[in-house]
């Protein structure tokens, strides 16, 4: 029982971290039809910046704000300066974001070196508490709470506000939305930057237990893709479902069939792709 509870709690926490990445990837795809391979870089840079700011100031809050802010700016620059010019040409988009992924990876290797780093968290988030026999690390609870809170906030914004209505309109039919007076290009930039900021937040929140190292960008990108493919690109509830699925499948798969842990993770993804190419919640 303890075994299952520990794995489930951990799987949910990991899922919520993946949600931060997946939701950004999904939002960006929704409004711009861009598959952004550089999304893993925001995670990597966010994590490195978070570690650097935390070391310099000792403030976890500043680390989060600094990383999110810088990734927001980087996202804006990338979208305005490069991606917007390409329109909806898929191949140039993918190649360009791939290029960014490699450049940013090399840049961070150059700036921060190859040594792995781990973000020191504030003492308040240290340790663990016991629920009966089950040990819950405080920090995992914290990540779950932030991820869950953000999921709720994003849903409220998209479903209950004027901005959200505009985003949905732009996702459904950008040309009509534009004709109705919605500034679609501006909206696309904001969504892109927001997605980047969320991935940066994921980096800061993930680095205390996953660490940050050259290659972390690709590691999380693979999982984020699994999340959005399973859940359906462009769908927020789908991303949430996909995140929880991948988080739990990753944990249970590694515990029960460690030799096949990638199979337990990616076989369902392949199956879903075959049966529902647009994912569980994706619109056809």
């Amino acid at each position: 029982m303890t075994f299952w509870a520990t794995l489930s709690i951990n799987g949910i926490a990991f899922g919520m971290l993946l949600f931060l990445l997946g939701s950004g990837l999904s939002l960006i795809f929704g409004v711009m039809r861009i598959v952004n391979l550089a999304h893993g870089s925001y995670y990597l840079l966010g994590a490195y910046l978070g570690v650097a700011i935390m070391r310099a100031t000792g403030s976890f809050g500043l680390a989060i704000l600094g990383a999110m802010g810088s990734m927001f700016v980087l996202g804006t620059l990338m979208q305005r300066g490069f991606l917007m010019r390409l329109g909806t040409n898929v191949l140039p988009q993918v190649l360009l974001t791939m290029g960014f992924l490699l450049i940013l990876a090399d840049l961070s290797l150059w700036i921060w070196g190859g040594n792995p780093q781990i973000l020191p968290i504030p003492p308040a988030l240290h340790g663990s508490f016991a629920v009966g026999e089950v040990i819950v690390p405080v920090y995992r609870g914290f990540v779950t709470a932030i991820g869950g809170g953000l999921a709720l906030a994003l849903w409220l914004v998209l479903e209950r506000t004027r901005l959200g209505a505009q985003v949905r309109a732009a996702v459904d039919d950008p040309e009509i939305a534009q004709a109705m007076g919605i500034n679609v290009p501006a909206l696309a930039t904001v969504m892109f930057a927001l997605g980047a900021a969320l991935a940066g937040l994921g980096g800061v929140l993930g680095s205390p237990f996953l660490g940050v190292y050259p290659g972390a960008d690709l590691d999380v990108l693979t999982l984020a893709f699994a999340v959005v493919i399973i859940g359906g690109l462009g769908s927020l509830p789908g991303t949430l479902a996909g995140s929880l699925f991948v988080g739990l499948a990753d944990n249970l798969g590694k515990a029960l069939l460690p030799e096949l842990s990638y199979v337990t993770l990616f076989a369902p993804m392949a199956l879903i792709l075959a049966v529902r190419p647009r994912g569980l919640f994706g619109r056809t």
Partner: protein
Amino acid sequence: MRWLVVLGTILALALPPAYGAGMPLLKVGFIGPLTGVFAPTGRDLLDGINLYMEQTRQRWGERGVVVIVEDDTFSPAVALTKVRKLVESDRVELLTGFINSAAAYAMREYIDSKSAPTVIAVAGGDDLTQRLRAKFSVRTGWGASSQTAQPLGDYAYRVLSYRRVATIADDFAFGHEWVGGFQRMFEDIGGRVVQKQWAPLGTADFTPFLARIPRDVDAVVAAVVGPIALRFIRQYADLGLRGRIPIIGPGHMTDEINLPQMGEETVGMLTVLHYSAALQTPANRKFVEAHTRRFNRLPSAYSEAGYTAALWMDRALQRTGGRVTDKDAFMKAMAALVIAADAPRGPVRLDALGNVVQNVYLRRVDRTGTTLQNTVIHTFPTVSQFWTVDPEVFLRGPVYSRDNPRCRFCE
């Protein structure tokens, strides 16, 4: 005419002394990962060699020395290409470096076909100096992967009084061989390994593995190395296991590359390695002091491996009068060396198969002021790759692997 004399004097003083000697410059080829995830280990290794170069003013055994550096990016295929380039186009006379065991294995045939004397400074694959040894290679650094594990298996049973342990290790050759060596010696005297888990390389979250560890074992034997060890130890503490079940493992987990990033959760951990920057011998104090002054950070076992490999080549060259042309004589000179006091890690020599025989240290992570260090709390003197087993008997068995020894007591 006077100005000519002055100019000549200036030139003679300014040029490296190598050009003054009668023999041509000795070229040494270095192969190691200098980019990618393993770059920190390659950098430390090279720094160790460079430090020795500077201390000897680029002169080994009466000859001026130059090191030609190639990055193998931790890939066996790249390593082989770069070695070919070093031997055939740069005409190096000696090869050194090698961190990736797969790269070192890939090199064996080529090394022997070219009779290129090779000093493996790190790569630990057991069979490199056991069943699949290249005639023209010796291993002066690190030793076989299982070399540190075997004494620990013994010690864990006899001194730490562990009876039942669970193991968890990276699912690749080093993990297999290290755990294999531990298990064999631990079970030979009555201990029981009740669970063996293999985590895929690059595992982000170990919680699924940690959740499966039986809570009634005496210790967790963990061989999770490189940057991954940081996460492993943090996650172990997060799950409340720290303080309940001790971890023991290879010194790679808490090496001087990882240590500055580690915190309270590491304090008290026991690991084994053939080196610690906190080793209190005159040679090591001198080495640590020089390294810290030169590079502004503590040396790791990789730095020490580079330094000692260079020391080894220098001493062998001193014996052959700087000549490598007679390859067999040079290999003999390397094999016969006994370095009693000058290697930072302690007394070293080679066994009949060219693998280093050295002290293995049991180290405990201690806090000293604001930093952590690996305090040596026990020394296993002159440990060979065969530990207490007769080499012939040892070599008749298969190399340690995922399923050798078999897990007889797994529950």
